[in-house]
């Protein structure tokens, strides 16, 4: 099967650079899949889980905000953070989720926009981490 080159780059260094069969990513307009020889494509990425398949094995990653570019059979993700589902500390993510939910509830009362946006982003990240970890376990 034809393969596509996947690259995930974060500010703290490249996470993956590998030939894979298919990539599924959380685009802003919804999840999208990319196979080999996809047409040139540019999309923003929201916090969520990215998955790719190689040698009949599917791997999951948590990614947060950035964008992706597909050109000449290569897909590049530029994201602020990326973690393998297997590396995620679920307990910590759970705690972060609870914390974010609490803060969100408080911020709603005070109607503080910035804090709310921050808490929401933190909640999204925690949820994405938990999901990526759960998917990796299966």
């Amino acid at each position, binding site marked *: 099967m034809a393969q596509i080159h996947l690259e995930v780059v974060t500010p703290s*260094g490249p996470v993956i650079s590998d030939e894979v069969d298919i990539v599924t990513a959380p685009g*802003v307009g919804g999840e999208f899949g990319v196979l080999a020889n996809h047409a*040139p*494509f*540019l*999309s*923003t990425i929201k916090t969520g889980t990215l998955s790719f398949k190689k040698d009949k094995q599917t791997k999951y990653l948590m990614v947060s905000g*950035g*964008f992706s570019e597909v050109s000449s059979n290569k897909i590049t993700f530029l994201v602020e953070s990326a973690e393998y589902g297997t590396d995620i500390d679920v307990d910590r993510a759970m705690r972060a989720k609870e914390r974010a939910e609490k803060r969100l509830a408080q911020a709603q009362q005070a109607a503080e926009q*910035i804090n709310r946006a921050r808490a929401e982003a933190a909640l999204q990240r925690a949820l994405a981490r938990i999901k990526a970890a759960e998917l990796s376990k299966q």
Partner: protein
Amino acid sequence: MPGLKDVKTKIEGVSKTSQITKAMNMVASAKLRGAQEKMEAFRPYAEKFAEAMRDLSGGMEGSNLPLMEVREVKAVEIVVVTSDRGLCGSFNTNITTTAEKLMQKYEAEGKKVTFVTVGKKAAQAFRRSGKLRSQYNDIMGTFQMFNAREISQDITQQFVSGESDQVDLVYGKFHSVAVQKPEVEELLPIKPVEGGEEAAEKKETVTGAYIYEPEPEEIMEVLLPLYLNVQVYHAMIEVGASEHAARMTAMDNATNACKDMIDELTQLYNKARQAAITGELMDIVGGAEALKG
């Protein structure tokens, strides 16, 4: 001639100082390695980002993205990035004087200037100026992206709400272990990145075929704040590496100065000792002469 004991105590004191400066030099060089690794790791991200910005921003000149809005400049905000700690030679002073000169220039043009400082040394330098709007201390050691995000959100808010019409960034750029220079960059409004002929050509051939999701303008809306983060983060890690490099040099100089001082003091000590012995001998000889009578 100073007393023997005084000189000896001084030698001991200086040699203890030199032990400390030597240790600090080694710590700084170890930390520099870490900071340089961070810089290396960040480079591919920054390069790819700049590339994407080049490809996208070309056709955006006429658009009304808030971060690219060019207004008449009445108020300038200067973001000054220095280290948290001193003992690194003139590194921080160079940055703050550059920022000060910039401030004087803008004020001479009749513009209002405010400061945002990152790192304790910058806060210390501008605390009394009355122009310090916000400060971020004790975040230089960790270099987390979310710190950079916090800062860029802060300055974005000021810019979008019209409190500032231009944002400049002053930081210490890491050229090499021996050379770090203050650098001034314009942060906001974000200018379309000039890619030269090559990029324009590439754009002609490639961009037409690109599928955008969502529309390019909307992508830019997401990308521009991220780009700002990248620039602030970049300044932070540059300053981090520069700080350790500057400290290494400063501590090396200090250790050498200590060595010179010890040499000088040892000479002085020997001279004093010789003088004491000579004095004693003279006494003995004088005594013997007197006995001979």
